[in-house]
């Protein structure tokens, strides 16, 4: 992607207008920071400051954005390109991250430069002896970083992390509610992070971690054959060192071994076989004995040869992509590349930000859609700090980032609406918050803006099952609570009337001493305890 492309298409990257832009910039940098800390299993410590620099137009102002983290840091030689050059996605391996190929951060810096014509400052250290500081601008036409200044400092205190600072034009006042929502919800789904935000008015918002436990960082994985597209195939072919299709498939794809590769190549007619005695064998006549190709005539092992991937024509690449999706016998992807929050952490996060009266969380087993593994995590919070709105409060997360826009278009909204809540004795006017987290190597966003999840049957099914599970537990809680309530009421009635009967009967019988009803009251209490 070239910067001029972004320049012309800022809408799809989330920089639609001055208020969305400021929200998007903060969000992209915070997410990079969270990824940088989490990849090292370091509890994130993120400090964000937005300060007023001056008026720009009637509606917009110039702000300086400062984002500081304690993440992995960036090697000095990568710093200029990490912030001053928009690259093609350079990863041929997949793992669950918040951002997509780190593009978002660059977009933010680029947006800043476009709107204010000011350089960006990046300071980083990987915790080694030195701290590197760059003053950068981007040559938009040539897509190259321009280093305006570079400093090296001694890292006396073994600091590790990254500080990014740049100016941008935006409308903070309008963006404020979303930004504060963003921090609160980020804190909910990252309960091990300390988040600090100082806004242009100098107001401090602090979200303190509730735990230092962290989920296992995701492992890198190769793309699964069901999940590839032509563009990825072409990029892999460009960089590959393998000279035949069998090795190419085995080396670049997840869950593809030599036997699977062989069978797939036979299936898609991309392999030829030769017998030492009978010459060439068409691939639809080859026999497999103990997974080895055998000449159908003499039964001796045949030699196979497949094409050099670099020699595939465009049509062949397209057909390869189609066959990869069509072939039924690839093993499903495993989920080690995912890093779900886990029930304990999700619980801690929701507890911390909502302090509900009752909370239930549930994590589904990994599932896949179109070759991409995903896991759905769900929580229902009831009462306590959960607001009563007349409808459920829905918190949506994907790969541990909050989704704040287009709630009604999200698959989860449909799943929640389609649910027969009466069956679970749940009414929409109850103080209920539903928290949905989906994590995947490729979150099925409907649009480039990363705002809502597409309605894919596999995702819908997983969300519906998770929702049913937590709703069932909520129902148990509600009926238990009702029972306790009734029991309390029952005891209250005895507690109210028995002493009165004692008093009235004493007066009526002309007795000075009022009989003691404590024992009777205890007896109903004991009985009540047995009942429940």
């Amino acid at each position, binding site marked *: 992607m070239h910067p001029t492309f972004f320049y012309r298409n800022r809408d799809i990257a989330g920089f639609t207008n001055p208020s969305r832009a400021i929200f998007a910039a903060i969000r992209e940098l915070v997410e990079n920071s969270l990824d940088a800390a989490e990849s090292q299993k370091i509890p994130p410590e993120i400090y964000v400051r937005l300060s007023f620099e001056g008026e720009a137009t009637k509606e917009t102002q110039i702000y300086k954005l400062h984002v500081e983290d304690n993440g992995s840091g960036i090697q000095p030689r990568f710093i200029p390109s990490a912030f001053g050059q928009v690259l093609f996605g350079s990863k041929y391996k997949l793992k669950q991250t918040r951002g997509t190929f780190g593009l978002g951060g660059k977009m933010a810096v680029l947006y800043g430069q476009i709107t204010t014509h000011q350089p960006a400052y990046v300071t980083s250290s990987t915790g080694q002896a030195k701290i590197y500081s760059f003053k950068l601008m981007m040559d938009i036409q040539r897509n190259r970083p321009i280093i305006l200044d570079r400093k090296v400092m001694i890292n006396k205190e073994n600091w590790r992390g990254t500080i990014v600072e740049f100016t941008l034009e935006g409308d903070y006042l309008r963006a404020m509610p979303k930004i504060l929502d963003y921090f609160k919800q980020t804190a909910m789904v990252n309960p091990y992070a300390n988040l600090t935000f100082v806004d242009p008015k100098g107001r401090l918002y602090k979200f303190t971690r509730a735990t230092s436990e962290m989920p296992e960082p995701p492992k890198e994985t190769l793309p699964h054959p069901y999940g590839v597209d032509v563009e990825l195939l072409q990029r892999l072919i460009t960089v590959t060192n393998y000279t035949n299709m069998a090795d190419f498939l085995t080396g670049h794809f997840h869950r593809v071994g030599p036997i699977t590769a062989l069978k797939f190549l036979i299936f898609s007619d991309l392999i030829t076989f030769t017998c030492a005695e009978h010459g060439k064998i068409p691939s639809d006549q080859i026999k497999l004995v103990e997974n080895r190709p055998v000449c159908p005539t003499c039964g001796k092992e045949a030699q196979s040869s497949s094409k050099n991937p670099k020699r595939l024509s465009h049509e062949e690449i397209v057909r390869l992509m189609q066959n990869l999706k069509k072939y039924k016998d690839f093993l499903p992807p495993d989920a080690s590349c995912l890093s779900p929050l886990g029930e304990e952490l999700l619980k801690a996060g929701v507890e911390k930000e909502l302090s509900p009266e009752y909370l239930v969380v549930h994590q589904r087993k990994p599932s896949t859609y179109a070759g991409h593994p995903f896991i759905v995590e769900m929580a229902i919070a009831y009462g306590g700090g959960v607001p009563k709105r007349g409808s459920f409060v829905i918190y949506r997360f994907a790969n541990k980032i909050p989704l704040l826009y287009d709630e009604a278009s999200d698959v989860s909204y449909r799943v929640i609406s389609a649910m027969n809540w009466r069956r679970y004795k749940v009414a929409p006017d109850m103080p209920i918050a539903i928290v949905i987290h989906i994590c995947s190597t490729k979150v099925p966003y409907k649009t480039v803006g990363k705002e809502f999840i597409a309605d894919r049957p596999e995702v819908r099914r997983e969300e519906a099952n998770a929702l049913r599970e937590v709703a069932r537990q909520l129902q148990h809680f509600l009926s238990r609570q009702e029972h306790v309530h009734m029991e309390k009421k*029952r005891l209250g*009635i*005895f507690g109210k*009337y*028995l002493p*009165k*009967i*004692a008093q*009235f*009967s*004493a*007066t*009526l*019988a*002309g*007795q000075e001493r009022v*009989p003691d*009803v404590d*024992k*009777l009251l205890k007896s*109903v209490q004991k009985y009540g305890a047995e009942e429940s």
Partner: protein
Amino acid sequence: MVQKKVKIIEKRNEVLGGLKKFGAQMYNQLDEGVFPTINMPSRGTDNIAYDATLRQYILGEKNVSRSARNIRHIKPFTQLAWAAMFSNELTSQRKTSTLRDVYYSAQAYDMTFTDQQESNNIITDLETLTGFAREDFHIFPEERSAIFGDLDIGYTVPGYEGKTLNLTSHPDGVLIGPALTSSELIHTRADKVIAIEKGALFTRFIEENVHNKHHALLISCGGQAPRQTRSFIRRLHDELNLPVYILTDGDPWGMHIAQVIISGSANAAHLRDLNTPDAVWSGVWASDIIEYKLPTDPLDEVDIKRLYELQKDPRYQTDPIWQKEIKLFLKIKRKAEQEAFSRYGLTYIVDEYLPTKLKN
């Protein structure tokens, strides 16, 4: 006279004793560490039956149990205990109260009744449990009936003890209220009681000197006679040996006003001595309508429906006059008010009709 006074004090002691017994029962149960429980006759419709010997409705064998152990019973149970205590207070201090007053007094003890009906029910429970009428506990409804005639009474209410009153003292009649019903009946020159459905005719009778001409005590029932009026009529009959005649409108409703004075109501099946079985319904009968050619109105649907109901009512099976008159009403399909006699002049009813009827 001394005897009569003793009787009233005795009655009060009996009532107080009954209440105290209930109190002691609850007290002892609580003291022994058990939930107080009471048994009393059921007032369900299936437990109400007409007793031909007593000539009134009575409650059957069926009992209901109320226990403070039961979550649904404990509130009415407490209300009942409170009502007993409150009645005890009223009776021993000789103060009076009304049903409405009971409803509000309860609130002073943090004993709320949902509505008037609930507190009325509790008072009825207390009547059933003790066998005394609420008037015995000094709880009275609003008074609206009156008595006039040559009867000397002696007050027993505080502040009036020893004072007497002749019931001809006031030409509007004397209100039949707690002070009167708790009085001793000292002396009368009357030889009969005439109970009249409506106040207008009662006044006419006083004006026309009926009490002297016929030696009668006149009672205005004010429609359906209140319980204390019915109980007072019974006392006039029992204590003074006076026959009782009842004059009502000539329609099913008037007929039933007379019947309730004679045979009582199902609602009061748990009580005794509220009815006067020997009292006589003297008119206006359906046959009077024909005989006296009274101006009439047609019976409407509700009247006819009511007549068929009364036809089956056990109280209407005792004296053949009832069935005969019901049939006649249904035949002529007309009804007449007491005032219908005015077509023959203001004094006709007193001078002609009444003597004839009393003679029968």
